[in-house]
């Protein structure tokens, strides 16, 4: 399945990428599963995503938990806690 990943704010800077598309050979992918795949790519993904800093996830523009299932062709956004207002 194909997943588009968006990075915002500090993560976008750390990974030096605003978005990327990954093809992953599975029908069942959770957020945790996707994070493992990204961390396997090594730096800068591993240092940015394996840190203890809080991570927020949105699947198709809805906030999601780490055990959430990712549908095919989903847009998954990764970012640090929001600081607007």
């Amino acid at each position, binding site marked *: 399945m194909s997943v588009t990943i*968006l990075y*915002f*704010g*500090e993560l976008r*800077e750390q990974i030096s990428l605003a978005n990327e598309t990954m093809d992953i050979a599975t029908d069942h992918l959770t957020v945790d599963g996707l994070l493992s795949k990204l961390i396997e790519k090594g730096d800068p993904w591993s240092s940015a995503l394996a840190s203890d800093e*809080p991570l927020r996830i*949105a699947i198709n*523009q809805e*906030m999601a938990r780490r055990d959430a299932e990712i549908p095919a062709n989903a847009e998954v*956004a990764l*970012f*640090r*806690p*929001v*600081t*607007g*207002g």
Partner: protein
Amino acid sequence: MTKTREAFEARVQQVPFQVGQEYEDFLLGDTSDGAVATFVGRVRDYNSGAAVKALELEHYPGMTEKVMLQVLEQAKQRWPITAARVVHRVGKLNPGENIVMVLTASAHRHAALDACAFIMDHLKTQATFWKKEQTPDGSRWVKSRESDNSALKRWQQPDQCCDHSEERTRS
């Protein structure tokens, strides 16, 4: 044709907004709301022990507007407000510039004031914006604050302060 106001609106924009103009536009054609609450958030020149020279704001286009409209809808379910608006800026902002404006309208003041505070507290913790500060020591991403999360908790209990039943029957 008479222009009517957009009752529930959430906007993200680069250009500055004019507070007076937003207020006038928000109330266009309305004669039934006796109360309007407004909140304006500005860029402060000092934060977490350092001078702030400028602020860079980015957001998640699409999701931000959706989240802000959901927050307005939650406020509408909870209080008898007839209109609510959020205008939020992104891009580079200097100290003293306005970042965000929230407006709420209702027949009576308590609903307008409470809904305005509710919307602001939820925007702070849920709307997908991120701030980066430029300080004399370089730039840094602003961390979320525990006080913003605890501000949300007061809305998790049922209303203790005001009984809106009177407002509902009157309006």
